[in-house]
């Protein structure tokens, strides 16, 4: 029983990372209409920046993490302005931005490889909180609590921002039709910048936290998050933050329990079978409306 509970918490913590990353990825896809292949590298770079902030400047962990998050957001804004902005008025649709994002994926991935000298770096164990939290008979690492809390705070915050505020309404309007939004008095340029920063920062946070909990700071970090975060977005439905959060946690729990009770070789298999099932049976995700089919 205790093992089961501990594994469940492990799963929830792992899934929270997927969800956190997926929220950023889904935000860009839903609001800006961009399938961003470079999104994983934001997470890698956030972790790398946090690592060097610790390593070179001896910054305390919260400051280093904040530096990583801001770096993630800034890179996202820069990529958006260089790669996506010039294509916005030309009607190249999903395709043009996909190609420029692939270009940035190649560039940032290769630079990240050079920044870490093609090794997997790890945050020194003294640099982040390693205390164990006693919950009855269970001992939970404090980092897992931080990860889960981050997801709850970010998911709730972004959900409320999108659904309840004027800024969120503007974001949804731009996502639906940016010309109509502009006619309605929305400054789409600022909304785009804000969305890009928010998405980059959220995925950057996922990158920093994943870099700490998996002891892996390298260009492979973002790729791993990207594949699983992507699955979370598809299962949860990209138009809804709640769906991504729930689906991410679900994937994490399923992965950990599959590895515990079945076999590690089934781990990815189960994740992607689930993905396929959802695509076939509920293509618009957990919370998506089903009555919207292709003409």
């Amino acid at each position, binding site marked *: 029983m205790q093992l089961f509970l501990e594994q469940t918490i492990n799963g929830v913590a792992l899934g929270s990372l997927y969800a956190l990353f997926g929220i950023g990825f889904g935000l860009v896809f839903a609001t800006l209409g961009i399938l961003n292949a470079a999104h994983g590298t934001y997470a890698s770079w956030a972790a790398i920046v946090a690592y060097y902030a610790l390593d070179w400047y001896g910054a305390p962990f919260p400051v280093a993490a904040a530096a990583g998050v801001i770096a993630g957001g800034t890179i996202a804004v820069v990529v958006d302005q260089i790669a996506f902005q010039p294509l916005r008025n030309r009607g190249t649709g999903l395709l043009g931005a996909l190609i420029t994002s692939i270009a940035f994926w190649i*560039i940032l991935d290769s630079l990240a490889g050079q920044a870490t000298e093609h090794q997997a770096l790890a945050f020194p164990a003294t640099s982040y909180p390693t205390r164990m939290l006693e919950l009855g008979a269970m001992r939970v690492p404090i980092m897992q609590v931080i990860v889960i809390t981050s997801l709850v705070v970010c998911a709730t915050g972004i959900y409320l921002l999108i659904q309840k505020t004027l800024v969120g309404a503007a974001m949804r309007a731009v996502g639906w039709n940016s010309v109509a939004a502009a006619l309605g008095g929305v400054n789409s340029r600022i909304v785009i910048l804000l969305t890009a920063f928010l998405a980059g920062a959220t995925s950057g946070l996922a990158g920093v936290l994943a870099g700490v909990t998996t002891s892996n700071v390298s260009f492979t970090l973002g790729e791993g998050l990207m594949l699983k975060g992507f699955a979370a977005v598809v299962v949860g439905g990209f138009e809804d933050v709640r769906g991504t959060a729930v689906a991410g946690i679900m994937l994490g729990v399923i992965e950990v329990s599959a590895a515990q009770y079945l076999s590690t070789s089934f781990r990815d298999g189960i994740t992607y079978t689930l993905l396929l099932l959802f695509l076939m049976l509920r293509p618009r995700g957990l919370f998506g409306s089903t009555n919207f089919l*292709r003409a």
Partner: protein
Amino acid sequence: MQTLLDLWAAHSSTVAFAMVNALMALSTYAVLSTGVLSFTTVVFAAVGGFLSAQLVAKLGMPLAIAFPLAAVGGGLAAAMVAGAFLKLETHWMALASLALVLITRVVALNAPVLTGGVNGLVIPRRVSLGELTVVLVLVALVFYRLSRSWYGLAARAVREDPAVASTMGISPYRVQFIAFLISGVVGGLAGAALAFTLQFISPETYFIGIAFTMIASTVLGGSFHWFGSIIGAAIFTALPVAMQAVVPAFEDVAKGIALLVIMIFLPRGLIDPRAAGLRRAARARIAAESNNA
């Protein structure tokens, strides 16, 4: 003459890879030309690659039989994928096809009997440049004929506006289904060609990296004309080799920047029939004006 021969010896493998990539890009073009953004070329290539590799390695079949069977395998996979995917809306189709690429790798990893699993497959035979050229020329010929047929016209109409196309009596579903079949057959061939060029394949061979480079070379070359795919694949294959000579440490960065610059300044790609048409019209107008004067 000697330097030419040396140059050829150093770069003949680049040429071979350019031809393989051209086949992949043509497979991506086949669906893209009907307005479907799909990464499933990689899936068809995996089917064709593993199928032909096993046929040759286990059953000792000649390439002349293995390649057509790979094409058939790719086509069958495409029929299944098309049946399931064409119900989805554009954005979802892109996501779904990407998910299918991920699933393909997991399936390949967990079916070692068919694919060699983690260890991959070593392929005893290599496809020659001549054989590759024959395959590519045949495929290109098919695309040339198709582009001037009823199907080519219908595909352009469906890409521009499916609703208008269906009022003209063209079924978008049917045209896109045919596009998937073509993509599957060519993708299967491309997968087999890649297998017999690399001489080693594993589940990692047919994965995200190749999916992204394929779509990038198709769009880079120009996704509005079949010849664009061949040009795009050639450039995308030759660029890293050329960059390695100039800036060895940053060859990938240079590749990315080149792709970025071309896409920002020529978003319709290098080969663009519309731009060519506009230039011709402009020349004709200038000629007419100077005649009048």
